[in-house]
Structure formats: structure tokens, C-alpha cells
């Protein structure tokens, strides 16, 4: 099975066949380079991987627009482009190039809106400011595009609620 993975910004082509058993060696290739490792699942989102003689603890969390991985404290951002992703519902990665949806990272209040709906914005431009736990955080546009949807100033939002859509 072929996958395209972006990891900390770099694009890698991975050939990987799911292992038959846990705790057995898993063989795969990264950009053609063969890799063999021993992987077991410790709990949901936590793996112990022995690779290159090293013992690595990897945790995986779903983060906005991909996966946040921590390997012995080192962080990696990853996105998987799965050839079978549509069937699996893993299509989120594809959306990156298209419609971008920004969700509230936690419950809070919109204290400032910096752009108007319909406005053209560039990547990194501040869209609005959310306040939670007495701290303010600016939510920036992940891409250049047009603001389609936007939360209102003073609005209270729950975690996961859509704050803005950039197309």
C-alpha cells in the first residue's frame, strides 16, 4: 500500500503493509529506503517502537489538520494522504489545499474580529481573537484565500466550533 505523508513539512512516499500481529517486525519503505522496526500498541494513541536499536515511545493525537506525534519528547506534525482515504473517511488531508475550516481550540469568547466575511486574506493573517482562561489568542489564516464564514464579536464558542472558513 502506498501512502504520501507530510512530516514536519517534508513530503515522504511510504510503502507499507499493515502487520499481521502486534509485536512483530514491521517492514516498510520511506522514499524507497527500507525500514524495519518492532512496534506494539501500548494504549490508544501510544506505541512502543524499537528501531535502529533505540526504544522510542510515540504518542499520536489528532490535531487540527493532521496528527501531532511526540517521539521521546520530540514533536512531529504529520498528515497522511491515503490512496484509499475516501473510502475510509480519511479525506481531511486533501482539504488542506481547498476549503480550510478553523475551529475553536477550547471554549471561549470572541473578543475581536479582525477581518470581514468575504475579505481576501493572506496566509498567516490574523482573523479573530479568542479569549479563554483570561488569555487572548489570535487565530490566523492557514492559507491565502477568501474568508467565507466568520464568528461574531462577543460570541461564546465551544471547543470544536467553527470560527472561520477560508476558501
Amino acid at each position, binding site marked *: 500500500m502506498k*501512502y504520501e*505523508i507530510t*512530516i*514536519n513539512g517534508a513530503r*515522504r512516499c*511510504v510503502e*507499507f*503493509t*499493515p*502487520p*499481521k*500481529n*502486534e509485536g512483530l517486525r*514491521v517492514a*516498510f519503505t*520511506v522514499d524507497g529506503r527500507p*525500514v524495519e*522496526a518492532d*512496534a506494539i*500498541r501500548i*494504549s*490508544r*494513541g*501510544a*506505541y512502543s*517502537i524499537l*528501531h*535502529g536499536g*533505540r526504544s*522510542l*515511545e*510515540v*504518542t*499520536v*493525537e*489528532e490535531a487540527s489538520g493532521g*496528527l501531532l*506525534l*511526540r*517521539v*521521546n*519528547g*520530540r*514533536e*512531529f506534525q*504529520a498528515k*497522511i494522504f*491515503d490512496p484509499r482515504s475516501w473510502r*475510509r*473517511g*480519511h479525506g481531511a488531508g486533501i482539504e488542506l489545499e481547498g476549503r480550510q475550516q478553523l475551529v475553536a*481550540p*477550547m*471554549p*471561549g469568547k470572541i473578543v475581536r474580529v479582525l477581518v470581514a466575511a468575504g475579505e481576501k486574506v493572506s496566509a498567516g493573517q490574523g482573523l479573530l481573537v479568542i479569549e*479563554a*482562561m483570561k*488569555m487572548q*489568542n489570535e487565530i490566523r489564516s492557514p492559507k491565502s484565500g477568501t474568508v467565507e464564514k466568520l464568528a461574531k464579536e462577543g460570541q461564546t464558542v465551544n*471547543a470544536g466550533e467553527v470560527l472561520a472558513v477560508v476558501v
Partner: protein
Amino acid sequence: MGIVSVAVFSDADRAALHVRLADEAFRAGPAPSRESYLRIDKLMEIARHAGCDALHPGYGFLAENPELARACASNNIAFIGPSPEAMERLGSKTAARQLAARAGVPMVPGTKEPIENLNGAGTIARKLGYPVLLKAVAGGGGKGMRAVSADAEMGAAWRDAASEAQNAFGDARLYLEKYVDRPRHIEIQILGDAHGRIVHLGERECSVQRRHQKVIEESPSPIMTPDLRRAMGEAAVRLAKDAGYVNAGTVEFLVDAQRNFYFLEVNTRLQVEHPVTEMVTGLDLVKLQIRVAAGEPLPFSQDQVKLSGHAVECRLYAEDPANQFFPSPGTILSRRAPSGPGIRLDDGVYEGFTVSTEYDPMLGKLISWGEDRAEAIARLRRGLAEYSVTGIKTNAELLLGILRDPEFLGGEIYTRWLDERLPRLLSGMQTQERDAIAEDAAILAALLHSLDGKDAAATNGAATETESRWKREGRFEQIDRSE
């Protein structure tokens, strides 16, 4: 001690560990603290209902509020802390400074009184010796404050500070203080009983702060000498005696590069960082607080207080240092606690616990003890590397960065050190050299995790499906090939 503990909780804290571990627990009210934890009447009602003999105010909310101590007294409940009068004497900065001055505790030299005009400011500044600090009489939070390092700068500084003070407080008056360059925050733990004995338990250095919030605390201070400790300890005890202080408290000082110390303020309660003192003295401060509140005499004298080894504490927060320290509430999916010699973790969270947005996002404190500073720091680093929490972001990596920093390791810290050092520490976290093996592992885990199914990932808590999708997939592959 065989004491039955009664906890109070707000609706946001129903699942908090203090509720689960207490013998009894009662609801104080809804999540907002002014409707629950800050309601003295509610607390008294619960204490009466549960038949409490004593009340420990903790170190947040009402811990330094004399009205709580008063309410306890009128309800015949022992307040585990100083008398309301002592709290008032030391709780207000102005009153505490006056008391400290009378007790001969060194203060930052300055005028205290407003200065009439620019000319007067120049005269006083030359007398104090530059650098000096112009401060707003009505001030606070750094507004209306200017450091001045020479006569030539005084004019502009005076104008800026006065107009800022006028804008911020409606009061343009300024006074002058000697500017303490790169001060350290060093505090003395004191403990007094109701029989007139007050001792100090050495110092804690809390100079590693971010925006005036302590991040790392240690005892002893890397710059401490026996003479300085005696002088600071005696000054703290003198002030506490003059204030009629009973129970645990902390006298905070600024210390300059020449080891001059200046009174800052008094905290009339137990501090978050009290475990470092516990670890170097071998004493249980909360237990001693309770004994003293029960009228028992302190079971030791100043001579019997022995400091042994070195302790360091770091505060673990649910926050994202890479994103302006934005709080990171959420459900803790997994948690791994460190163990081993000299490691202590005081935290209040567990797997499945939801860190709320209601209160301070502190997860807990990791404390280490070692024979010397280097061993204590090395143990704390190991402990932090073993500590792992997923589901929320924490400041653990930043703490590790601080504990590896050459300036921190050299003890070259002061109250603004971390704020100044932060950009370098944060960029150091981002620009690690590439680790191909770790990256391979990340790729593999990402693939295995995505095979484990997105559906299960949507659940909160430590979810495990009956059968891992990754195993199922493997089996299908096997079947496919065997056909």
C-alpha cells in the same frame, strides 16, 4: 494524622482528585469561583454541617483573606493560618513595608513620598546613585515606571512616566527608588507557633519566572552563603515576630548581585513551592501547620533545622509555549508519571480527567531532590522526560529546555531572566537537528494509528476498541495473499 478530611468543590471540580481522595466532599456552588470557592458563607455552612474542627485555606482563592479567618473564629473553627490581624498587617503592601521598616528589615532605598518636580528627582537620584527607578505613586503592573541610568535621561523619563501614570491612574505623582539590576527573587519560609516561637526553614530561590509567575523554584539558592541565610532568616523572623505571626508564611526578598537583600512582601499562607523546603528540611509543612493551629508548640528550635541536599520544583501547566502560552484545556488521554529516587509528583490529574477552562491550568508540580544542585537538576530532567501527558499541550519541553540551559545550570538567573531568554529557548525547541530514526518511528505510528480507525479516535478518554483495526487489516491482507 488520622484526620477526616472534608473537601469542597464547585461544579467544575466534581471529578477533581481532591474530591475523590477526601473522606467527605460537599458542593460549594457553580463553577464561577465568586459563586463557590469565594463564598465564605457557603464554606462556613459546609464546615458547620460536616462538623469541621479546622479549616485549611490552601494557597489560592481565599487563602490570604482575613475575612475567612474571622468567619472561622466566629464559628469556632480553627483557621490553619495566621490571625486575621496579622494577615491584615502583612497583607497590605504599604502596611507590610512600614512594619518591615520598623523591624529593621532592609528595603530598596528610595523616597516612598511623591517627588515635587523634575529638579527634585535629579537631586534625589544623585543621592541614591544611578541607576534609579521612577515609579507612579498610584502605580502597579509596570505602568508609570521608568528605569533611569544617568542625569541626562531623567527629563524624558520623568515626562513619560508622569504622563503614563496620569493616563493609567489619573494621578501623575511619581517617587524614586534605587534600581536593583537583575534582582533575584529569594524568599524565606517561616513557621511560628502560638507560644511565641518563630523559626525560619531556609530560603527558596524563585528567580525563574515568566511574567512574574514562578516557573522553577529551588532550595537552597545557588548564591546562598551561611551568613546571608542567617541575615535574611533573622530579618524574616524579626518581621514575623513584630506582626504577631503564627503558622506558616513566606517573606519575599529581592537580592542583588552584591548579595544585598531588600524586602518585597509577605505571603500569609503556604506557597505552591513549599515542597522544595519540605525536601531539604525533611519536614511536613502541612502537618506542622495543623499542629500549630491546634495550639501545639513547634517540636524543634531554630538550631535543629538542618538543610540537607538540594531540591528543585517545576510547575507543569496545560499551556502551549509555542503558541504564546495559550492555555490548553481538554481531556487527558494518557498520563505517565515518573518514579525513582528523589522524585515527587504532586499533581491533581489522571487519565480521563478534563482540564477545564475555569481555573488556573496548572496540572501539578514535579519536584526532585539530590545530594547537590547538579544531581537534583539531573533527576528533574529525567523525571520530566519520563513524564508524559497526551490530549493536551504542556510546558514540559520548555521546562526541559530551561533545565538544560547553560545559564540556568550556572545559577545565573534573575527575575527577568526567563522572559529575556525565552525566544532563544523556544527557537531551540524548534530547531533540533533532524533525527531520521525518530521520524521513521513517527511515520510508522501515524500509519498504525490511522489504521486503528478514526471512529475510535473521536471518543474522549482512554478508548480501546475491542479489536484493533490494524490487526484486522493485517488479517485481511493475509487472507488476500493466501488466496
